Structures are given as structure tokens and as C-alpha cells.
């Protein structure tokens, strides 16, 4: 705005010469400066001072890495909040009062066993619906549609159980063979064996969440599978190769796109120089590509990337295993659920 702030900017740029690049516009320079101010500013100044003494023209370069964010999408819908459960239950009883009454004779022929069974059940539960408990929208008590505290009629599991019991009793009442009891298999539970054992290598864990593949290097730190991009290789090819070399080929995966969804820059405290080319390496930048697993399982037995362990973790669990800087860079590219 004013000459004063311009002067201040100039002062800042003089104080932090490492950030200033003539090819970058001023606002970008400021954001870059702000970003590295907290964490990497001392390291950056140090690298520039050393490079200025030896080779003032060549800046230390970053190695480009391709990373794979391999995820298993949620398999089931999320659990409902208590408020949502009671809301849906309220809507069901309200619908009893608003919709037309059930036209029984359109669906059940008079005098058939199914018709007799239906009449018996209506006397019992006083409404055509099976999942709203004892409630009649047509009598004088129809206004009293609220559940008491602790009632389980609004639980989805209870409603499914009511449907199954009704189907079983109908099958038993209308079948000719009275000796045999009809058993309808219950749906699989939402909590699996792997959930109970907390088996973090299993893909059957946390069915309503997205799971991400995390690998552990021989040194012991956890990361997404990543490796340097070789010459003449695109980012996506490198990501596919990384996945095959780290987690094996026994997986049916699908790369979502050709562009990275996020990136992370690793700045070591001291810039190392490459032994062969004598070019200083400032650190590494990892560009993450998104991928989905359809079938199969990760297998590190034949990996060539110095990995020793893997885990399938949800977003919250990732933060416990990853380095703080790494996690803060990747957390926004992961799905919330």
C-alpha cells in the first residue's frame, strides 16, 4: 500500500536472501517465506551460505520422489448419530399419519394363509409397519408418537431384527411343513473379527472408514510407499513401479489420476552432496498419487525398497505413526471418513 510497507518488504528480503528468487512474484515469495519461517528457515539459510562459498551459481537441487497413497474405500455406510436415528424414527411415525392407509386386499387375497397371518400380526403390532414399534396412527393416542428414554426402536439394528423376525414368523406360519423351523441368516455384523483383534494388517478392519497403506522402512520410520523418479519416467509410471516394488504385484489396484494430490518436501538439517555428480542435494520432494485397492493384499516379502512392515490405517491412526511435519503436509489430501 504505502512506501513504508514496501520498505519493510525490502528489509525482509534482505534479511532472508535464501527465499528471494527473481523468477517468483512477490506475493508467492511472501507465502514461501512464511511457510518456511517456522520450520526450515535456519536450515535454508545454512544451505545457501555453504553453497555461496563453494558454487554460487548452482543451487542445491531436490530429488523428485513419487509416492503412492493406496487406499481402501469404505465398505459400509457410517454409523448414525443418536440425533439422526431419532430423526429418522420420528419421520417414520409421522409418515404413518400422513400417508394413505395400507391397501391390504391389493397385496393379499382374502382367505389365504398369508392374509390370515397378516391379520394376526396387525392385531399384535397395531400397524402395517414392522420397524416403528407399537403405534397406531388412527386411534386417539396417535399424538403420543415419542419414544421413551432408552427405547431401542430407533436403532437400525433393532429395526433390521424386527424385519427378519417378521419374515421368519411368516414363513413358519404359511408353510405346509410345520416340523421344520425357517431360519433366515442374519446380516454380517458391522464390527468384524479384525476390529476386535485390532489387526492393523487386515483390510477387513474399520469397514466404514478409508484405510491407507503405510510402510515402515528398515530404519524404522513410517511413510507412504515412495521412491525417486528415474530418468525418462513420468510421475505416474514411477508411482506404479514404486507400488509394485514395495507392496508386491498381488494386488488389484487402480491409479486414480495422472496428477499428484499432494506433496511433501523433506529438508535434512545439512545439505548432502551426491557422491557421483558432486551436485548438492537439498532434500527430497515427494509427490503423492492417489490409488485404490480393489482386491488382494500387500506383500513385502519381495520388496526392493528396504521395507520391513506395513499397516492399513485410518486417517486418525496415521497421525500416530507419521512424523508431525509429514502428517501436516499430507493430512488435507486424505478423506475425512
Amino acid at each position, binding site marked *: 500500500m504505502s512506501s513504508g510497507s514496501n520498505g519493510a518488504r525490502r528489509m525482509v528480503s534482505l534479511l532472508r536472501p535464501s527465499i528471494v528468487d527473481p523468477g517468483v512474484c512477490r506475493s508467492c515469495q511472501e507465502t514461501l517465506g512464511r511457510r518456511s519461517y517456522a520450520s526450515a528457515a535456519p536450515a535454508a539459510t545454512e544451505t545457501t551460505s555453504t553453497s555461496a562459498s563453494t558454487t554460487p551459481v548452482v543451487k542445491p537441487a531436490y530429488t523428485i520422489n513419487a509416492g503412492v497413497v493406496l487406499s481402501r474405500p469404505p465398505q*459400509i*455406510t457410517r454409523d448414525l448419530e443418536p440425533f439422526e436415528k431419532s430423526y429418522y424414527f420420528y419421520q*417414520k411415525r409421522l*409418515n404413518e399419519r*400422513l*400417508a*394413505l*392407509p*395400507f*391397501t391390504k386386499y391389493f*397385496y*393379499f387375497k382374502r382367505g389365504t394363509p398369508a392374509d390370515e397371518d*397378516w391379520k394376526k400380526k396387525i392385531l399384535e403390532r397395531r400397524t*402395517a*409397519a*414392522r*420397524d416403528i414399534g407399537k403405534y397406531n396412527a388412527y386411534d386417539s393416542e396417535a399424538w403420543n408418537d415419542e419414544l421413551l428414554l432408552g427405547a431401542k426402536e430407533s436403532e*437400525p439394528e433393532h*429395526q*433390521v431384527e424386527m*424385519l*427378519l423376525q*417378521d*419374515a421368519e414368523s*411368516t414363513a413358519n406360519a404359511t408353510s405346509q411343513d410345520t416340523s421344520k423351523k425357517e431360519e*433366515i*441368516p442374519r*446380516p*454380517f455384523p458391522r464390527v468384524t473379527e479384525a476390529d476386535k483383534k485390532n489387526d492393523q494388517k487386515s483390510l477387513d478392519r474399520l469397514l466404514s472408514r478409508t484405510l491407507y497403506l503405510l510402510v515402515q522402512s528398515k530404519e524404522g520410520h513410517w511413510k507412504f510407499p515412495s521412491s525417486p523418479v528415474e530418468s525418462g519416467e513420468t510421475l505416474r509410471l514411477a508411482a506404479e513401479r514404486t507400488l509394485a516394488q514395495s507392496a508386491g504385484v498381488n494386488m*488389484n489396484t487402480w491409479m486414480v489420476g495422472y496428477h499428484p494430490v499432494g506433496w511433501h518436501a523433506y529438508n535434512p538439517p545439512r545439505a548432502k552432496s551426491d557422491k557421483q555428480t558432486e551436485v548438492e542435494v537439498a532434500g527430497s520432494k515427494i509427490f503423492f498419487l492417489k490409488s485404490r485397492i*480393489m*482386491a488382494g493384499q500387500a506383500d513385502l516379502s519381495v520388496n526392493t525398497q528396504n521395507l520391513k512392515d506395513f499397516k492399513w490405517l485410518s486417517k486418525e491412526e496415521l497421525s500416530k505413526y507419521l512424523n508431525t511435519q509429514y502428517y501436516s503436509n499430507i493430512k488435507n489430501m486424505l478423506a475425512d471418513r
Partner: protein
Amino acid sequence: MSMHTSLRRTAATITNSTTTILPRLPTQPTATTFICSQCRHATLLRRPKRPYTFTQLITLSDGSTFTHRTTSPAPIYRSTRDTRNSLLWNPSSSKLMNVEDDEAGRLAAFRARFGRGYDVNTPAEPVDPKDAAAVKEKEAAAKAQADAEQEEEDNLLDLISSFGQNEAPPPEKKPFKK
């Protein structure tokens, strides 16, 4: 521009025509829809014409379930064919692959008699060492057959070349029966 002027002209004509319409005579019938703007008595609020809906549990062929609202009074619907057991949606599923199991040996008998020309898919290349041995055997058989055919051809050539020179040699038995 021409569009503009024409539109304007039509609008102008409409306004002209509306001004010339005479007011309605009181003997003409009024609108059929009854709008009660003045009456104050309580009216019956009719139920909307919405059919009664039940909650139904759908079980897909792989056992996954979900509930939905439907007019059908059946509490459970079990589907036999859906995306979960269709090969189109599960290209990597080995369960759905067209693997033929020949328990009675009828398929093998058919193939022994008529060959594999009727197969929908070409037989896959064997990978096992046992199968590799079978391939070698088959190659050897093919070579033997080729040799036999060559010999037969030679015999025929002999027959042609020797025709009319002297009495025909007694017809040899074919060394390999096809």
C-alpha cells in the same frame, strides 16, 4: 437487430389487441377451480395421495444388506443376480471365472472324440512342469504325424511317377491312421 425490431412489433400488436377486448358478460361461466378466499369455516384437510410405504431389507447376492422404503409388504428381498456376482463388475474374481469342472468325464470323452475345436476359449498354455511334459509329448506327436504325412506324400509321388511304367505296386497300408 432485425430480431429485436420484429419482437417489439409483435409485443406492440398484443398490447393493442388486449385494449380492444370487451369486458366479460356476467352470464359467462366462471373459472372451475374453487378458491375459498372469504369463507372462514374449518375445512377437512385431505390426506395426500401418497401410497403406504414399508421398510424393506435388501440382501444382495454376496450377503451385504441395506434397507429402503417400498410399497411392497414383503419384509425381505433377496436378490440372486446383481452387481456383486456379475463378472462384468468383478473382473478379478476367481469365483466367477468360467471354470468348468468335469466330474462325470463327459467333457473329456467329447474332446477325445471331436477335439477341442468346439471350445469357446482357446485352451490356456500350461505352466506346470507336468503340463510342460504334456506339451513336449504333444509336440513329439505332432512331429511324428508330420513325418507320417511326408512319408505318405512320398508314397503318392512314387505312385504317380511309377504309373504306366510297369504294373502298379501293391497298395501299401498307410503307416499311420488318422
